[in-house]
């Protein structure tokens, strides 16, 4: 293998920066909503505990948000830097949702977050509350446009080929925006983002409750996190089921690869393997633990449905659908199977574990509970955060690796999308530089988040203390660098 192979390096870089970007984005999506809800509770009830929770989770939100922005720029520049052939080929279609995201969503989000951070003592209460809701809406719209762009890579719609065959040209923007993959991926992604946020809140509040501190604020926060986790897990499961139906319809190879299913199967034979050991070359199976019917049910919502296998799909792709690409991929249109097989299972498994902690938590903290929550349960609950975070990251690995070997399914192979004129050493240099700076920042960021989480919210004011002099509070700036 050539170590300076620009294709391999560009792929590593894309994977790395995408995952790194996605360490921060889902928490931004969910935490913005949480902060908005807490602040609304304070606005309506005037209860100080909601204000302090708003400020506290707001701090975590902002540490996280900065990283989301700076890694987002890299994400956008990368298409042109490393994937210029891809950009030339699909820019007419793919660029538009990105431009819309900037004009209609990202400007809103960034501007109103700035207003929210620094506007505490400058804006009327109601206007200030509105800024965080507008920022939240901006973040969600961003997510939608980005998912619409990604959906074009998974399932290209709304385009026709240019007369010289040199590029895809948009002919139906509405179709691009209502791509079934985008419509199914949006709720799945948003629910997953809220699930992660719930995980963060469960972890942080459990940590404080284990130590018996900030009880009056951390108890309602825990309840919010536990119920949030249960509700959003249901949402993730239902939307994930919808997404897999769309996936089977649009990218059958991805579903076959998720199950490492080599030969088409129907009904009871279309079983879902919980665990499997394959041959070293990944072309066969030695042993597996299986649930009959489950794959048929997942893929088609019917007990006697049929699921196409990798071998049959390869035959179909090579001879009928994409013969012009067959030589380039040696007749094998399947992604790397061990990656898709295991990422699919870890995504579901870690999500289920996170949801399980919430079920146990709700049971142990129920109103009629006789005994106090044991220490081991609090410690266990702290894992809700990493479990849900890794579930999301691995979900993206599955989505993007499952798309291979295509950069745009049915239109362009990943190997044809790379920049032809960028030497390998340039990509090495940028890969090393990004990896280094990301690693350093990850250490700093995790350190700051853990520190801020442990410090907890500011204590509630002492009800017996004399009130501060008139005007002193309004004049004290709440946020300065």
């Amino acid at each position, binding site marked *: 293998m050539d170590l300076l192979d620009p294709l391999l390096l560009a792929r590593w870089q894309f994977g790395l920066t995408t995952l790194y970007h996605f360490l921060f984005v889902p928490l931004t999506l969910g935490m913005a909503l949480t902060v908005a809800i807490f602040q609304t509770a304070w606005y309506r009830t005037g209860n100080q505990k909601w204000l302090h929770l708003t400020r506290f989770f707001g701090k975590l939100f902002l540490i996280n948000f*900065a990283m989301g922005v700076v890694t987002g720029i890299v994400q956008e520049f990368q298409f042109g*830097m490393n994937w210029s052939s891809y*950009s030339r080929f699909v820019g007419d279609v793919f*660029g538009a949702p990105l431009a819309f995201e900037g004009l209609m969503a990202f400007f809103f989000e960034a501007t109103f977050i700035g207003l929210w*951070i620094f506007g505490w003592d*400058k804006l009327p209460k109601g206007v200030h509350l509105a800024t965080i809701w507008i920022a939240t809406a901006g973040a969600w719209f961003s997510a939608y446009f980005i998912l619409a762009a990604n959906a074009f890579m998974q399932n290209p719609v709304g385009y026709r080929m240019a007369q010289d065959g040199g590029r895809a040209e948009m002919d139906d*923007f509405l179709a691009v925006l209502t791509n079934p993959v985008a419509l199914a991926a949006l709720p799945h992604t948003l629910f997953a983002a809220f699930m992660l946020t719930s995980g963060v809140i469960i972890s942080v509040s459990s940590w404080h409750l284990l130590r018996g501190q900030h009880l009056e604020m951390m108890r309602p926060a825990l309840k919010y996190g536990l119920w949030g986790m249960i509700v959003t897990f249901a949402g993730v499961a239902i939307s994930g089921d919808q997404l897999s139906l769309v996936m089977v319809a649009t990218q059958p190879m991805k579903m076959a690869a998720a199950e490492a299913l080599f030969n088409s199967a129907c009904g009871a034979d279309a079983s879902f393997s919980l665990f499997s050991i394959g041959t070293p070359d990944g072309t066969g199976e030695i042993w597996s633990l299986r649930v009959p019917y489950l794959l048929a049910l997942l893929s088609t919502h019917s007990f006697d449905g049929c699921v196409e296998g990798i071998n049959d799909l390869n035959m179909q792709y090579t001879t009928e659908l994409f013969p012009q690409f067959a030589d380039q991929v040696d007749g094998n249109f399947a992604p790397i199977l061990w990656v898709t097989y295991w990422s699919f299972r870890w995504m579901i498994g870690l999500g289920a574990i996170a949801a399980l902690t919430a079920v146990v938590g709700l049971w142990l903290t129920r109103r009629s509970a006789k005994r106090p929550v044991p220490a081991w349960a609090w410690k266990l609950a702290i894992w809700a955060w990493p479990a849900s975070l890794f579930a999301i990251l691995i979900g993206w690995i599955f989505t993007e690796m499952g798309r291979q070997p295509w950069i745009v399914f049915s239109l362009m192979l990943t190997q044809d999308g790379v920049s032809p004129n960028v030497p390998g050493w340039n990509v090495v240099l940028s890969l090393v530089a990004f990896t280094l700076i990301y690693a350093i920042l990850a250490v700093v960021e995790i350190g700051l988040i853990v520190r801020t989480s442990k410090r907890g919210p500011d204590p509630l004011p002492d009800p017996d203390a004399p009130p501060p002099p008139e005007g002193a509070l309004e004049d004290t700036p709440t946020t300065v660098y």
Partner: protein
Amino acid sequence: MDLAYLWFFIVGFLFVGYFVLDGFDFGVGMSLPFLGKDDIGRRQIINTIGPVWDLNETWVIVAGACLFAAFPEWYATLFSGFYLALLLILLALIARGVSFEYRHQRDSLRWKRGFDTMIVVGSAVPALLWGVAVANIVQGVPIDVNHEFTGSLLTLLNPYGLLGGLTTLLLFFTHGVYFVALKTDGRVREDARRLAARAGLATIVVAAAFLVWTVFNALSAGAPLVGVVIALAAVAAVCLIASWLANARGVEGWAFGFGAATIVAAVLTLWFALFPNVMPSTTDPAYSLTIENASSTDYTLTIMSWAALIFLPLVLAYQAWTYWVFRKRVSRSRIERAAAAAAH
């Protein structure tokens, strides 16, 4: 009318917005070692851009996305061709962005000085390299028949490109120092006015040389709109001198306003010198990327035009409102009060 021509100017408008807005906060970042004598002073300086640096930076993301959508060929050639320059800009922007958010998270002088250094370097590198990049786009670079850039990073480091970089570096620096003078009080404000007077002179010399060179290039290349180029270069020169005079007279708002106008006129000078190319080829003029051969289809551009028509005025309105909300000067006593409140 052909929409691609409209989009050439919309993309230009977005880059003008980006250079005017992020330009002054690059300058504010670079001014830290000159104006920030102590930690309170440095916080005072950073807080002048605290609420707005992030929305200023979004302009480059939107400009990049619109360039991608409206001119995919231009985007692909430019971003893959200027790979290492853009890599340096990205690393600088990452370091700078997180430094604003992280420097105040710990009360340790070493921690803060580390992030201050990153703010200075992270502001200076893009301020220099954006100028190098844009000057090279206008002058032309080696591009082959497939629209692929065939040079290297060294290709960009030619005299005209470097002078362009030095011009933006100085222009943004002075523009940022005017902003500090406008938005602070006390010693920082006094120091900023003095520094701007000195830095402004160097800026006038360098920027004038760059504008003259640009006009000569446009004349010798036979740019179709050379009259507009000359007029805009003249406007830029007048605004540049006016901003220096306004600063000398102590009218800070006018100094900053003329500084912004200088950048607007200078970027427009370059844009009209480029017209109707988007990236001329020095290999063979026939290989040049032009507004017509680099653009998206009319269908895509029509949809994008509607989005821009509706949303750009809205963006300008709420961003202007943001600047209005934070219109007050950042006073030294305000930072001291906040520090005291945080200590409790």
